[in-house]
């Protein structure tokens, strides 16, 4: 074996254990002995270096910030999810301001919905709550009078159970039998129409909202709806069996209720 052969052996097999031939060559070659001794010294010295080193904590902090900024890290409290806790221990989480605010908003929405349903969306029972005396006594101009009311006066053949005049005497000095007797075609909307007309008169008497443009737009929409309702009623008067016109009228009343609610809210928020 030559010196270069020994080097090839060292390259492929490492420093130890060496084959017999290599050891025989080493025994008689000082240069290779020195070479092998030096490599062994280097390897031993290199193994003294630490294979691990503590990095500064700031690296992880910086890394985490970067990963969060890039959206790589998404879950913030995973350990809490892992550890199953009894349900009663999670009560304090409901006392957080954000949770309380969400619950409060939900309660407010439900209450508002109930209020609106109570005021505008009550199902027909043939009975109508007596309106406030001040409103009932208020003279109603023809323009403010609800369309149903005006048409009702022209249709006297209303069943007694639906006659509102027996419960709510009208403020106008007209014959009660001719004022509040909706025709059969308007019978389904009679109660709602009366409530809406009263609400409309309330809204008309309210001060304008802070934004005059909004108030004007709402009033314009109300006028348009009233015109549409009048048209529908006119059509139903001529064709009482027209279901499509009836549906249109129903939808128009619903829109009017929503519009009046919006106008009330708008005025209330400003006052």
């Amino acid at each position, binding site marked *: 074996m030559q010196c270069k052969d020994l080097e090839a052996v060292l390259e492929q097999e490492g420093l130890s254990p060496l084959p017999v031939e290599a050891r025989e060559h080493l025994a008689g070659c000082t240069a290779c002995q020195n070479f092998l001794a030096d490599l062994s010294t*280097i390897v031993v010295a290199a193994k003294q270096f630490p294979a691990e080193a503590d990095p500064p904590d700031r690296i992880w902090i910086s890394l985490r910030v970067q990963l969060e900024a890039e959206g*790589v890290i998404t879950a913030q409290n995973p350990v809490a999810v892992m550890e199953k806790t009894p349900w009663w221990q999670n009560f304090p989480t409901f006392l957080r301001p954000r949770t309380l605010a969400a619950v409060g908003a939900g309660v407010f929405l439900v209450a508002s919905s109930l209020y609106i349903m109570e005021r505008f969306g009550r199902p027909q029972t043939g009975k109508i709550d007596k309106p406030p005396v001040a409103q009932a006594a208020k003279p109603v101009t023809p323009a403010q009078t609800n369309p149903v009311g005006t048409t009702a006066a022209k249709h006297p053949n209303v069943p007694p159970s639906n006659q509102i005049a027996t419960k709510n005497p009208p403020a106008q000095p007209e014959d009660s039998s001719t004022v509040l007797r909706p025709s059969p075609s308007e019978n389904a909307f009679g109660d709602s129409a009366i409530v809406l007309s009263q609400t409309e008169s309330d809204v008309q008497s309210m001060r304008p909202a802070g934004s005059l443009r909004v108030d004007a737009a709402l009033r314009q929409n109300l006028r348009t709806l009233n015109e549409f309702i009048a048209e529908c009623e006119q059509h139903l008067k001529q064709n009482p069996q027209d279901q499509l016109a009836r549906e249109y009228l129903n939808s128009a009343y619903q829109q009017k209720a929503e519009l009046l609610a919006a106008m009330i809210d708008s005025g209330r928020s400003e006052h």
Partner: protein
Amino acid sequence: MCASTVMPGTTLRGIRRIRTTSSAAFVQLARQRPAETVEWTEAEAIRRAQTGNSTAFEFLYQLHSRRVYALCLRMMGNPADAEDLMQEAFLQLFRKISTFRGESAFSTWLHRMTVNVVLMRLRKKSLPTDSLEETLEPDAENSGPRRDIGAPDLRLSGAVDRVNLERSIEKLPPGYKTVFVLHDVQGYEHNEIADIMGCSVGNSKSQLHKARTRLRELLQEEVREQARQERQSAKSSTASLD
């Protein structure tokens, strides 16, 4: 994950307990993340990290950061570069962790990224003269260090101290340095180095042998230089006495 893929010399086998503690210097972090103890396997942590779990990311970081930092520190020779490169390596790793399918060991994947990041940085520096491609070519006779067998050798026994060796390692070409640090300092086997470096096992062995041989030459130069300086200082002291 098979046992052979676990990093050699590590104590982090199987379940690893990580205790996150806050220090006074990082009060802000401690506020964000209370002290917590997590017991996961590496595979579980990887799976959770793939869903964006921050604790899993930290677990993996704590599991591997010490070795990665040591590698960067040894390769770059200064803490500032080592920190920078380690952060870059982990950043790349975590960005791509959703693509990890477990074909190779996670530590191998991480070290491959680290080595790539380090070598790219070293190539940008003008000091090293040999590129990885050059040093990874075992057949190029002129690319590796050559040893004159018959030349007078300077025995290094007793002359190799930590400072000399560190200085000489810094002078190694990037390819040699990477293989030497991975094998002789960090304790990786040649098959693992081949995975990390993307080369053959034989190539890894060849690189290691050439790195050791080159180191020997560099150390001999160091020893000669030191001897020369000692002689000069002795001469100057003698002249001043005269």
